């Protein structure tokens, strides 16, 4: 057992580093002599702790004390209960001003407490050096009338007209959008903790209807951070976001621990977690079940990439469950600032169209470098295509033009994106459908290195055909092996493929193949 994080009122513990989302065995947990019940996850969080207190946690497997962990909770300045600020929590009264006042009045190191109840609110803005706790059975239910939502302007020129101040964003461009249910702008040292729920209530409003028509501004996210640092989200459930769920932008040092993200399978653009040009992120023990990609790592479209060239990097995603959702972990397609050092390990992916999906295209630019993307110790169940890398992604207005789709070598220039190393180790996939992997680089800029080591892919008997990559000339397929076109180096080491039809490796224009 290992303590991953403590606050004044909570703690997150790694119980089984070798498990995936689920631990290999169930534990009975006892905290300072108090029974907490059974825990079957690898990472769990404990709440309702007292500040500045010593704790001893013991885990029992089959009645045997397995391990003991001691930790000390942080000091807390004071707790402000939102009820004392006038919040009713009755699901009807507009509790926005009460919650916002409590947050703005909170002293450094203080806690704003939202006890059980349903709080009808508009977007709430966070403040530095504080904790917001949504206790068990507390729900922030977002209003549905967009006229009551503040708008975050996309781009504001600085007064000297030399620079710009960015707030709103939509799909990698600085555009006006509605504020998020919880919004942090330039805040640091913030915790949002507890077993409560933030409900975007998008199914009750018009956010998901005619969603491509811009009504007032682009849709908000349920949790939005911009220029923030040292933010922890622990235990909270987010559901029914108007668009993307968790969207930190240009922020650093973020932790998401035992979060749940839920949206109906057919809800539009409800990605689970989309870090954009962020650094040093840990996403641990989280469950995703959403209508789009579970995780999509981004760094803006061409304007943001070329102006700020801020990559999204140093990201650890572990002990998570990606259930449903189009992609388990996606890189791009807005990645003009680059994405690197992404380490996904000990995760469970179930029922996704694709496990890892890298999407880019000509025109993303010279800062659009994808490198060091690692999948290790991953269990996949019913993932149709475990690995897809596509440098000719067509879902842009000009995506079908020869500039994007040509299989002829184009000159390498400032618009050419790069894909470096992508690595799969100890990935076990059952009930695959389309193919083990589909990798399409650029003829002028092949994928630098693709490694598959100690992997096992088994196909479903009744596999249904699917187009593995969104590029022109890619046909639907089923039960295929690994298809690679335009790569420099391909290393296959102890890779098992079961139930495929045809040859295990279909490599075209691959410069070097090492097959062990």
């Amino acid at each position: 057992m290992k303590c991953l994080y403590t606050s004044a009122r909570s703690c997150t513990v790694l119980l089984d580093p070798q498990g995936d989302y689920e631990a290999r065995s169930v534990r009975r947990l006892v905290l300072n002599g108090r029974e907490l019940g059974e825990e079957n996850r690898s990472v769990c969080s404990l709440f309702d702790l007292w500040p500045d207190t010593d704790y001893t946690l013991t885990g029992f497997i089959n009645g045997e004390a397995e391990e003991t962990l001691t930790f000390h909770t942080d000091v807390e300045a004071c707790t402000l209960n939102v009820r004392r600020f006038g919040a009713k929590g009755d699901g009807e009264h507009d509790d926005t001003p009460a919650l916002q006042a409590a947050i703005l009045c909170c002293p450094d190191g203080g806690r704003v407490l939202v006890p059980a109840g349903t709080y009808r609110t508009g977007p709430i803005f966070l403040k530095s050096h504080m904790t917001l706790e949504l206790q068990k059975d507390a729900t922030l239910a977002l209003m549905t009338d967009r006229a009551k939502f503040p708008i975050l302007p996309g781009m504001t020129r600085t007064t000297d007209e030399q620079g710009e101040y960015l707030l709103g964003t939509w799909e990698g461009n600085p555009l006006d959008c509605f504020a998020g249910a919880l919004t942090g702008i330039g805040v640091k040292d913030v915790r949002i903790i507890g077993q409560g729920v933030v409900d975007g209530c998008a199914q009750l409003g018009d956010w998901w209807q005619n969603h491509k028509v811009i009504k007032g501004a682009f849709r908000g996210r349920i949790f939005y951070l911009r220029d923030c640092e040292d933010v922890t989200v622990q235990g909270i459930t987010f559901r029914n976001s108007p668009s993307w769920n968790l969207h930190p932008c240009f922020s650093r040092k973020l932790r998401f621990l035992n979060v749940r993200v839920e949206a109906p399978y057919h809800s539009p653009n409800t990605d689970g977690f989309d870090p954009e040009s962020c650094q040093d992120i840990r996403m641990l023990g989280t469950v995703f079940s959403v209508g789009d990609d579970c995780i999509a790592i981004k760094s803006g479209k061409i304007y943001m990439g070329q102006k700020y060239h801020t990559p999204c990097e140093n990201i650890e995603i572990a002990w998570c469950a990606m259930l449903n959702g189009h992609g388990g972990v996606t890189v791009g397609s807005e990645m003009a600032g680059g994405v690197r050092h992404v380490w996904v390990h000990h995760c469970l992916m179930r029922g996704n169209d694709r496990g890892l999906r890298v999407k880019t295209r000509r025109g993303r630019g010279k800062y659009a470098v994808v490198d060091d993307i690692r999948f290790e110790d991953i269990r996949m169940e019913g993932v149709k295509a475990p690995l897809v890398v596509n440098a000719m992604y067509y879902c842009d207005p000009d995506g079908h033009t020869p500039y994007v789709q040509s299989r002829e070598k184009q000159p390498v220039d400032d618009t050419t994106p790069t894909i470096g190393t992508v690595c799969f180790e100890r990935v076990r996939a059952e009930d695959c459908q389309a193919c083990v992997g589909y990798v399409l680089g650029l003829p002028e800029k092949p994928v630098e290195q693709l490694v598959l080591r100690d992997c096992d892919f088994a196909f479903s008997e009744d596999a249904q055909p699917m187009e593995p990559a969104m590029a022109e000339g890619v046909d639907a397929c089923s039960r295929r092996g690994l298809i690679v076109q335009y790569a420099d180096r391909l290393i296959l080491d102890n890779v098992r493929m079961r139930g495929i039809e045809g040859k295990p490796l279909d490599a075209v224009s691959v410069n070097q193949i090492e097959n062990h």
Partner: protein
Amino acid sequence: MQTKNARLTAYLNEEEPSEIKRRGCIALYQSTGDKIYLEYVLNHMDKSSGMSLLFAWGETGDEAYRKAMDALMEHLPEVTDAKTLYQVAPFHAAYDVRFGGRKDARRIAELFQRMQDRLTDPWYMLALVDCIEQMDIQLYEHYRVLADLILKAGQTIWRKNALNAADCCLLMKGARLGLLDPEKYLTRALESFPSLEWDAFCPLALAEQRRINA
């Protein structure tokens, strides 16, 4: 033809139809709703005026205008001067967004960049603000090229001693589209407005002023 402004009435009645007159009338119709201007455009249609065809098609739904737009798009005049830019670029942008699959934004932005030595030519300035109004902001890198040129033009105008109607137009429309700070630029335009000398760009400036007052 009789409008509430005697000078405007005289201008519309006395002089030959031209692109700037049609475009002035489109803007005046959009800001006042007065059918006089709509009729002027419909009665003085020219198949080389893309913006007039688009406007007429939107107002009447007559597919003949749509066909004329398609034909014009097939044979877009080559842009070698600012006046042709004003005639062609906003239409090209509008057509591309509505019917062309949003493929040409890059080409349009590059055209403005190439011709930016004419930044303060009235035709170039009006082409800029009319064109950006038609572009898809989600193709932001191209949209932003025009937005930055509008700021540059605005800064140059702001330093001038006396403004003309085209200057006021750029400042007012730039402010209305959220591209220029209204505190700085709109104020300047409105200060200059009463002392403007009459010229062919005045109907456009008048239309913008009405939109702001509304």
